């Protein structure tokens, strides 16, 4: 279990992480979604004890980063962004070294390394120097390194960046598999990926958490609105007046041939198309087109993160 409480981290004048709180429970893959520079890496580095926040704290299985940083690291597997590794070592030696510093008893190291090579499908690369590996294999060595001590919590910083589609699918499958028991925090700047891999998504922008929920919840959240667009000919003012309270006119423009293009935001997620149709008839107008659009996860994401561009 990873618990993050009111984390704040400033680099000079940049507020990289701003009072962020969340938890990741065992058996849960939580997507940490946000554009570049949002503060994902900074948050993850704090959890791993690589840097300290100005205020707030993080705990892993109850161990606090301030009080027991070494114990926190024992409970974590961490895959840094861009997968830095010791390029001069070969895969076997590197994993053996990690096993040693991870405190695995010498008698068990060979078996554990063997197991990681299997889990991460590194058989063909076992005796290759890490510098010779392709991006996909490097990433797997990075994962093997994070998993070798079978930690209860994993922090993976953009584990699929730079991989081809097949490799991405493999990594996602592995993450979902591991996520059955472990608490996994998985960062990405790709919405679709968070959607497909994670049980729950945290959206971060400019250092602040701006949204949280299952992929389904977030789509429903859709800023709480459904958009109806229609082309109407008749008494627009009367129609607007008669609209029920859950509708709000967001746009109105001439649509040609005497029609007016209207866009209505509806705060009720249920389908109100029929109601709208009947209303236009009741005010004696004509309807040329009527469509209803639910906001997608993309819209939510764009909406929630648009503050950042300013």
């Amino acid at each position, binding site marked *: 279990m990873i618990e993050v409480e009111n984390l704040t981290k400033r*680099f000079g004048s940049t507020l990289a992480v701003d009072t962020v709180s969340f938890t990741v429970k065992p058996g849960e893959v939580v997507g940490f979604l946000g554009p570049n520079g949002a503060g994902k890496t900074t948050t993850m*580095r704090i959890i*791993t*004890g*690589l*840097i*300290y926040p100005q205020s707030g704290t993080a705990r892993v299985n109850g161990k606090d980063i301030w009080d027991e940083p*070494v*114990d926190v*690291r*024992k409970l*974590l597997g*961490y895959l*840094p962004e*861009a997968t*830095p*590794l*010791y*390029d*001069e*070592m070969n895969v076997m*030696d590197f994993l053996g*070294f*990690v096993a*040693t*510093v*991870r*405190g695995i008893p010498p008698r068990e190291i060979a078996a554990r390394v063997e197991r990681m090579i299997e889990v991460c499908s590194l058989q063909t690369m076992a005796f290759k120097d890490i510098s010779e590996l392709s991006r996909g294999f490097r990433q797997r060595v990075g994962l093997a*390194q994070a998993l070798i001590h079978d930690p209860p919590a994993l922090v993976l910083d953009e584990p699929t960046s730079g991989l081809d589609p097949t490799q991405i699918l493999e990594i996602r499958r592995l993450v979902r598999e591991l996520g059955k028991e472990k608490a996994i925090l998985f960062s990405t700047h790709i919405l679709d990926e968070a959607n497909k891999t994670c049980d729950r998504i945290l959206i971060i922008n400019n250092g602040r958490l701006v949204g949280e929920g299952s992929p389904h919840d977030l789509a429903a959240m859709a800023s709480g609105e459904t958009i109806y667009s229609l082309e109407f000919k008749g008494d627009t003012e009367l129609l607007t007046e008669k609209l029920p309270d859950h509708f709000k006119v967001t746009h109105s423009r001439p649509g040609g041939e005497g029609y007016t293009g209207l866009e209505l935001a509806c705060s009720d997620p249920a389908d109100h198309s029929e109601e709208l149709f009947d209303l236009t008839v009741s005010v004696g107008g004509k309807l040329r087109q009527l469509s209803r659009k639910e906001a997608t996860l993309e819209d939510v994401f764009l909406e929630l993160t648009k503050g950042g561009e300013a």
Partner: protein
Amino acid sequence: MRHVLAIYRKELRLYFDSPIAYIFIVVFLAITSWLFFRTFFLIRVASMRSFFAIIPWLCMFFIPAVSMRLWAEERKTGSNELLMSWPLQEWEVVLGKYLAALTVYVVTIILTTPLAIVVGALGSPEWGVIVGSYLGCIFLGAAILAIGTFISSLTSNQIVAFIVSVIIVAGLTIVGQPLVTMFLQGPLTVLVPYAEWLGLANHFSSISRGVIDSRDIIYYILLAALPLYLTVKSIQASKVG
């Protein structure tokens, strides 16, 4: 200790898997042997005096070349992110890396001992002086290496680490030399003993005389311990930044 040992073994392998250690050893041996045999053939005296006299000046350049990569390289490739995410204490990593670099240096110094055997075969040297001088070499190197380690932990650029270390070591070496102390005149003469005490090479020459004085040993131990302590602090400080 297991952690220190694991880091030590990894670092030592990185030295000997790459050309650095070999280049270091070969060049160091070539220069010292050349100086040794030159005096040997020119003045027909088999003595190690000129060999030991040159050691502080060689160490000034050679040891920063060994220490420059210790931290700077990790910072540059980002592998320190990985290293520090493992359950290691900062001092364990600092010590493991330091001892590995020290091993490269000590091995090099040991490889110069055939020169002493040549001297022994050709004459009757004062063995006490030779043993003392070798001990001095190790202490001197250990102190310079600690300074280089600290400087390397402050930058991600190996060349910068090298140059800054050489400058600092050079400063510490010449501060006790007559070259500097002769300028301390008038009221400044009170500083002369301090400058001499601070000088890296002065303690080396007194150990080389075969007199093992605890003050010299304490000086070198302090000079090795302080930069290593500062290295641990600088790594801890970079986490708060």
